[in-house]
């Protein structure tokens, strides 16, 4: 009797495991996969916020690629931003992490100070930067005037506006820095001692020990920076509103405008999918070519005996 029951209960999978993972499963279906599929469907429609929806097939995509100069313009702004922001973000985070990894008094204080912008609301941050960048009353131009130079109109000059946004974005590098710092601290110090005994100069220790040992974290921050660069919206939206002369009109902002200003949800959804594909392609490319320079501690390739 008891044997038979055990067998039958084995055949009928219990509900309990599904209940335990249901919060995640439900969240994934309703808030991740569902909206993604829904937006894909939207992108195939002419979908005004109010009014009749009409299936148009790939027309949104066709319009975007062939008849919409603003699509290319905003994509160009985003690529330009990413090309400057991503390397700078990683390089500066790395430098700060290396500095903070030196055991001196007050590192905890600096660590907190550099991470602080990450816990401040983006809007509040932008308000501060707006004041810093202000042409006549700004902190930055005041500082420059003390040095005897007249600062540019940061937010009003199309040549400077993108730089202003890059600088403001770099303010949030605390997160990246923290990841790299954690990576640095996990490198065994004996590797550096062995290098010291063998007479390896400090620059070579950084180049041939630190960077390779840190490569998994560098790869991770590279990809996350890339994604955040392409999704850049808050700072541009609030600081420059895309101007002047659309010089900071980011791709994400154009999506936002299409959806909520021009009320063309279908077109916005199609653009979101294009952005998703661009990010996906770039990330996959980075991952593919990273095998050559990323070193993973636990991974064993080929036959080791023992």
């Amino acid at each position: 009797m008891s044997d038979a029951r055990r067998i039958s209960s084995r055949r009928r999978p219990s509900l309990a495991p599904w209940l335990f993972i249901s919060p995640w499963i439900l969240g994934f279906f309703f808030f991740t996969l569902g909206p993604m599929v829904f937006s894909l469907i939207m992108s195939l429609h002419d979908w005004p916020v109010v009014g009749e929806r009409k299936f148009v097939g790939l027309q949104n995509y066709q319009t975007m690629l062939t008849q919409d100069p603003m699509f290319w313009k905003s994509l160009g702004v985003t690529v330009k931003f990413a090309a400057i922001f991503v390397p700078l973000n990683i390089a500066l985070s790395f430098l700060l992490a290396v500095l903070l990894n030196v055991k001196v008094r007050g590192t905890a204080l600096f660590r907190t100070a550099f991470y602080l912008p990450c816990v401040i609301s983006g809007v509040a941050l932008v308000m501060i930067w707006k004041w810093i960048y202000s042409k006549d009353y700004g902190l930055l131009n005041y500082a420059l005037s003390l040095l005897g130079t007249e600062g540019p109109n940061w937010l009003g000059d199309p040549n400077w506006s993108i730089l202003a946004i890059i600088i403001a974005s770099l303010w949030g590098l605390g997160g990246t820095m923290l990841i790299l710092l954690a990576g640095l601290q996990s490198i065994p110090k004996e590797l550096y001692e062995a290098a010291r005994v063998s007479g390896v100069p400090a620059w070579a220790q950084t180049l041939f020990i630190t960077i390779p040992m840190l490569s998994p974290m560098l790869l991770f921050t590279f990809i996350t920076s890339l994604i955040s660069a392409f999704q850049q919206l808050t700072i541009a939206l609030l600081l420059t509103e895309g101007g002047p002369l659309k010089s900071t009109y980011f791709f994400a902002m154009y999506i936002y405008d299409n959806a909520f200003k021009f009320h063309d949800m279908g077109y916005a959804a199609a653009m979101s999918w294009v952005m998703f594909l661009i990010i996906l392609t770039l990330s996959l490319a980075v991952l593919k070519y990273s095998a050559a320079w990323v070193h993973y501690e636990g991974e064993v390739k080929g036959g080791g005996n023992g």
Partner: protein
Amino acid sequence: MADLRISGLRKSFGAVGVLKGIDLEIRDGEFISFLGPSGCGKSTLLRCIAGLEDLTDGTITLGSREITGLPSAKRDIAMVFQNYALYPHMNVRKNMAFGLSLNGMPAAEIEARVKNAAEILRITDLLDRKPRQLSGGQRQRVAIGRAIVRQPQLFLLDEPLSNLDASLRVTMRAELSALHDRLRVTMIYVTHDQVEAMTLSDRVVVLDKGRVAQFGRPLELFHRPATLFVAGFIGSPQMNFLTAKVEGQGADSITLSLNGVTLTIPTDGHHPVDPTRPVTLGIRPDRLELASEGQLSGTIRLAERLGTENHLHIDLATGGSVVVITDGTHPARARDKVQLRIPPSDAHVFDAEGKALPRRLDAATEALISEPDGPAEPA
């Protein structure tokens, strides 16, 4: 010649003194062990020699050069770390060549040195592997190879075998010994394992709480320990210690009273000890004899039969306990009442400060421990 001289070396971390005045003279080509329990400062001393720690006070001279203030790379030393410290992203060849190539050595010379070291250590077929593809013993060889290619005047080894399993440790110990014979370079070896120190070393530095407790040949430490600490640290099972009173002393003997039983122990001539203070009598477990009549009596609490020998743990009638090693065929069992005899010439005597009175040894043992250039072999 590259004698290593350390004088007045002190090292403190903040207010904590780790090394409290170390003076050592190590001759060219010697294999020296720094032996001691954890926290005795042996690794710190090695790191001071390596230049990985700054001295608080004192000087270090290698050959005719004072190296106290020199950076590690300029000291003409190589170091092997306990956890190997191999660069995980470089293959074995690069691990060995890395330091050399950055110091501008010609590629052909590097290649020759790596090849030579790989042959000595029999890792030629592993040169293109990454460290993670190697076993513990192989990694240790690579770490040693990285030291060999530098062709240093001084090898520093920081507990290099402690991460290996027991059988591999024995093999690597023999290989290290062979390597030293082959290279004839001064090696300093840090260990907490007395067997490693005794079998490998020409001389052993026993460290206790930041001071040199004794510096001598392995058998000298065993037969003539300078202090209670050394006597207790060297030898396993540990030497038995019994408290005794001084009954009388001559120029080269001392008469002790052990709970009423007197015993006259020969010395090699000693300064008179204070007769009012208790002394410690030490006797190694293999030297205590079970006898029909002896100075001590007790009950066997535990008889450990190891095959070749038995370890008998005996509670003494007068309090305290001792360990006796007997032949493995001895029939003694737990709860047996036994008498123990202390052969006077095998006894060690330590004064109230824990300093040993010089032991008078028989000619054969004396010859064994004072042999100037013989290989160090365990008794």
